């Protein structure tokens, strides 16, 4: 096979509704972003408006903001469980939790990021000092390493990852925008189906190989962003 025929087989470009339709009820979905920064808002909107998908487990640092991003999905009753590190900035999450409408698995931010990275790298779990001797460490497996107590953390994987990048080439190589990178490259490695929302899709060869953050083998489909930030 010649290089040119290789580059013709790019990542499919889906419209947002078709991409959202690939997420089944009850799926575990990783969603990139730090608050709304670097969140795939077009895909989240499509999930909300073009599907009735429900009982989702969302793995994301936060659950959006009140009525924005994943916060909208929560208000529509689509989210059953959230796995993340910081939910207190969205009062809707606190209310849903207190009313028993939402399960929450709270994980320190660094442990969350590493659990996703490990999940994508074929690692079953790891030990970290973070959280030992705190309420979040209660009941967890412990191990002393180099004289210091560590907690066991199983790695995380998902059925689907929705990530946000600045640009893709037609193969699906991704580059990001500043701090909108955050969890996106980690999540792009850790799901069975990875859909990347991007501002633009450029020809193969237009991205400098030194600058590609997520190589195309991780990316299954591309969606053009509606531009929301």
């Amino acid at each position, binding site marked *: 096979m010649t290089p040119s025929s290789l580059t013709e087989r790019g990542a499919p470009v889906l419209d947002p509704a078709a991409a959202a339709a690939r997420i089944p009820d009850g799926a575990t979905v990783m969603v990139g972003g730090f608050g709304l920064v670097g969140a795939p808002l077009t895909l989240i909107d499509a999930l909300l408006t073009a599907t009735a998908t429900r009982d989702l487990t969302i793995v994301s640092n936060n659950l959006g903001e009140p009525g924005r991003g994943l916060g909208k999905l929560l208000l529509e009753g689509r989210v059953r469980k959230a796995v993340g590190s910081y939910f207190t*900035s969205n009062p809707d999450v606190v209310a849903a939790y207190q009313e028993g409408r939402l399960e929450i698995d709270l994980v320190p931010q660094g442990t969350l*990021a590493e659990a996703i990275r490990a999940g994508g790298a074929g690692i079953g779990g790891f030990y970290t*000092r*973070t*959280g030992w001797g705190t309420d979040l460490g209660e009941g967890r497996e412990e191990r002393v390493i180099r004289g210091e107590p560590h907690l066991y953390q199983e790695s995380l994987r998902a059925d689907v990852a929705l990530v946000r990048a600045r640009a893709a080439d037609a193969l699906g190589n991704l580059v*990001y925008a500043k*701090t909108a990178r955050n*969890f*996106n490259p980690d999540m792009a490695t850790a799901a069975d189906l990875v859909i990347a929302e991007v501002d633009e899709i450029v020809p193969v060869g237009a991205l400098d190989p030194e600058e590609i953050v997520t190589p195309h083998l991780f990316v299954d489909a591309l969606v053009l962003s509606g531009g929301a930030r």
Partner: protein
Amino acid sequence: MSVQDVIAARVVPHIPPGAVVNLGIGIPTLVADHLPEHAAHLQTENGLLGVGPTPLPGEADPDLVHAGKKPVTARPGASFFASSDSFGMIRGGHVEVAVLGALQIDARGRIANWSVPGKPVLGVGGAMDLLVGARTVVVATTHTAKDGSPKIVEECSYPLTAQRAVDVVVTELATFRVRDGGLVLVDLAEGVTVDEVRARTAAPFRVEVPEAVDA
């Protein structure tokens, strides 16, 4: 200058020139305004080393924020990275100083800063990682809570953030170092007496302020 700014300014001497520093949300964020230009490389856990000043009005970039989700700029020489790399830096001991806020500090220098009893525990962020991973941890906090009750207490009634003790506690009244498992008063703000600090502190501490008269 506000009390918060007074505290932030008092943190500056604890930051070595050229150090890599992570500033927590709240008073720690203000430390940036008091650092001499380029005195430190600021790291923010959402993926930036080389945080620059707050942008001018109308010049904010929605893709460029610090961990408090406020707009920032990137200095020349800055780099962006993924969350797992950022926390690798933090847990791996590559960040020299973390400046953190605290709700309470106990007599051994351990802090509580992530959860309040009676409220649902729904946020921890990077606090636990910074506390175990940074080589030096400086706490920047008001000496007492809003209701006037001491924040420096014998035992924390709020859940601890880690078993690791911090290294320095800076308030508007005083600076403590944590040494040999206990608090040592090493500096008083201008016009503040040891007695005044004692009256507003609910944990024992040793006094090693050269000029202080220990009543």
